[in-house]
């Protein structure tokens, strides 16, 4: 399923609406480029809306971790929004659910930035 990432600016942060698969190849690379592009533009408050992400593999998980640490190392924050059950379960078993700041409400996610 084709990966698509659409950024929108709101309340001083960028929400990226992502759909499709985040897997080895197109999806992982697309997410990496999106985060890199936002950081280049100075946008360091990022919410990844994963509500329409139907599938993620270990490469996709790695890319989420990479995005999280890259943004954090540049003084920003990356948060996750609207996890599907499968993505939620994957983050649970890999113990990453407690690493990421995960939200179910976009307004709450946006107001949680420092």
């Amino acid at each position, binding site marked *: 399923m084709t990966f698509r990432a659409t950024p929108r600016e709101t309340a001083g942060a960028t929400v990226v609406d992502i759909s499709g698969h985040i897997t*080895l190849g197109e999806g992982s690379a697309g997410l990496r480029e999106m985060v890199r592009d936002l950081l280049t533009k100075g946008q360091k408050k990022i919410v990844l809306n994963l509500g329409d992400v139907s599938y993620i*593999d*270990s*490469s996709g998980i790695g890319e989420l971790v990479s995005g999280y640490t890259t943004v954090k190392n540049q003084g920003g924050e990356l948060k996750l929004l609207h996890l599907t059950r499968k993505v939620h379960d994957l983050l649970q*078993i890999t*113990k990453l659910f407690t690493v990421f700041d995960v939200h179910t409400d976009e307004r709450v996610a946006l107001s949680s930035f420092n």
Partner: protein
Amino acid sequence: MTQQSKRIEVTLETLLDSVGLAEEICLRIADAAGFDEDDCHKIGMSVREGVINACKYGNQMQREKKIYLSFDLTPRRIVIHILDQGPGFDLVDVPDPLAEENLLKTSGRGIFLMRAFMDEFAVRRGTAGGAELVMAKHFRANPNGDSGTRAAQTREE
């Protein structure tokens, strides 16, 4: 192999395209065998991770090297073998991705996911070298005590 078992063998090139192909073949087999959606997802993802492992770490993306994938379907379980032509590895040498120091690493979760999603998982050396991943998923027993799977039902008819 018993008379009631079926075997499907696929030889793949070492290409990223082989990852999706292997997963698609696996999903069709698992679905036709009667696994539910959740189990199909787990089996498909395990094959995906196994073939990624074979491509990247086993065959080191050398296209001329092959990946041998097989599915043995019995009334009680599906057994999947993924054999590469790389140097092989031992499970004890694979870092634990849940360890504090590895939690933020960007790779190294494939083996962990296969072990989490399958009922049986082992790594052994192939007879001609390479690493052979062997994993199995059991059909969930129904209240009557038999597998209750579509494949088993078909064979009983």
